[in-house]
């Protein structure tokens, strides 16, 4: 049941040009960023040979690519999540789901999974770029894997927040803007420079604090737990929100 909702959600993104345009735009921008990193790598290659423990091609090409991808997708994910629930409410199609033998949790999780399928597609396309380097050189595959996992968790967290924002309103635009605001805020939290206790808490709450170690290849259980809790928290909030609306509306 969850899967049929997820499948429909996934396909319906491709029915509209939105998904295609987003995939294309991201691919072009990231390809450019990838190209400049490779170029940079070549320009400093001769100097690198003289340094002991020099960063490899994975550190200089793949890691920056994932970093850039996470920033660009911070702006793109709200566009993908905005219509997820709000459009159903606006078009009243949600009553089809609500009168079917499906629980609200299944509806929300199904929709979220559909979105994750799309994100996985996007990630595959992005990962192909650094992987293509393996034709000419040796890559640190586990580091790439850790980076992809980090990016996936990051995007999954963005999406969960987006799903919740989308459940609050029946206007996709408002959902997109508030999701973007929330994500940007969570991103910028770790930029507070003061080193007192408060900023440590804020630092810990920031998404970026937990993303950076994964990019460097450090697989920390507490970072993974942070992302999973973040996702579960927002999904539960979205479910509760829809249930409350059924009571009040």
């Amino acid at each position, binding site marked *: *049941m969850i899967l049929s909702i997820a499948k429909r959600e996934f396909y319906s993104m491709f029915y509209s040009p939105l998904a295609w345009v987003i995939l294309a735009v991201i691919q072009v921008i990231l390809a450019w960023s990838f190209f400049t990193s490779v170029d940079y790598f070549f320009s400093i290659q001769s100097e690198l040979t003289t340094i002991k423990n020099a960063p490899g091609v994975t550190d200089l090409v793949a890691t920056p690519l994932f970093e850039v991808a996470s920033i660009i997708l911070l702006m793109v994910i709200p566009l993908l999540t905005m219509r997820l629930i709000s459009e159903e409410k606006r078009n*009243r*199609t949600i*009553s089809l789901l609500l*009168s*079917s*033998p*499906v629980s609200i949790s299944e509806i929300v999780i199904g929709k979220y999974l559909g979105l994750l399928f799309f994100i996985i597609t996007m990630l595959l396309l992005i990962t192909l770029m650094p992987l293509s380097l393996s034709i000419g050189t040796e890559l640190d595959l586990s580091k790439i894997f850790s980076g992809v996992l980090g990016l996936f968790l990051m995007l999954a967290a963005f999406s969960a927040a987006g799903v919740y924002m989308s459940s609050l309103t029946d206007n996709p635009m408002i959902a997109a803007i508030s999701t973007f605001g929330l994500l940007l805020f969570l991103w910028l939290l770790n930029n507070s420079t003061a080193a007192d206790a408060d900023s440590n808490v804020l630092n810990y709450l920031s998404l970026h604090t937990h993303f950076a170690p994964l990019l460097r290849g450090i697989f920390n259980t507490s970072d993974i737990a942070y992302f999973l809790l973040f996702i579960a928290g927002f999904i539960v909030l979205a479910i509760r929100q829809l249930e409350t609306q059924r009571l009040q509306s």
Partner: protein
Amino acid sequence: MSSLISVNNLTRHYGDFCAVNNVSFELAAGDILGFLGPNGAGKSSTMQMLSGNLAPTFGEISINGIDLLEHPKAAKACLGYLPENPPLYKEMTVTEYLQFCARLHLVSKSQLASVCDFAIERCGLGDVRQRLIRNLSKGFQQRVGIAQAILHSPPVIILDEPTVGLDPIQILEIRQLIKTLGETHGIILCTHILPEVQAVCSRVQIINHGSLVYSASIDELLNRQSTQYEISLASSIDIETLADDKVFSAIAQIDEHNFIADTELSAEQLSEYIVQQQWGLTRFAPRQTSLEQIFIDLTTGDIGIDDESMDDQSIDDKTTSVKTS
């Protein structure tokens, strides 16, 4: 045999506003229940609660003997619902959409294609099955909505204004379809088109200001013995003479020659009596208490407005008083 839908003391408040007040009714298999009411009377709210789209403030709903609030999934599996605005994913084709609905309603994979074909055929969607719903006319979209509701052949079908936007021929077809479906399913038809109710339904309920004000079977309604007569008399007789006459229990004058009379006598006896009196009878007609008449009486009068404290007993009283008046 237990009833397909049983609703007990259903109440719904929106803040201070009471949209549905203490509504109770039942629906048996093979019944087509016409649910009538003016705009804003609480029709759609009631339907939304029956379909699980809206939680009641209090009250009980059971569908096919299963409590909707305690076992929502099992109860909703017995339900097909067409809301006021058909819930269509416009970017899908008709077949894709119906297949998705079938999967939502737990139709097994092996039956998926046959179930969809059957619904497509029944609703006359054969020619448009591969087209995007977005590009269909309003009438066809409405039919896709109906197809969605009857797809999994649920015991209970709730149709909220199903013939809106259809052309006259389609309306006849859909009515025929509803009638055929009504033989094997229990149907609630929510509408404010009165002839439609008379043509299709086997029972009628009228809701006004959130309360159920009338409930009767169509046969009862149409075959009711009329006790009111319209009489036109050639000679001008003043109303007192008629009022004094013991034959009439009440009489009202419309203009010089026309009267409306209430009497215990049958039409035969009354006409004979008037002729004997030599009042110059020119026209004589038993007054039809049509559905329209009842609807207007119930929804424009004061009945049912200040009914905060009205209980089932007084609803019954009012219903009977309407029947006999």
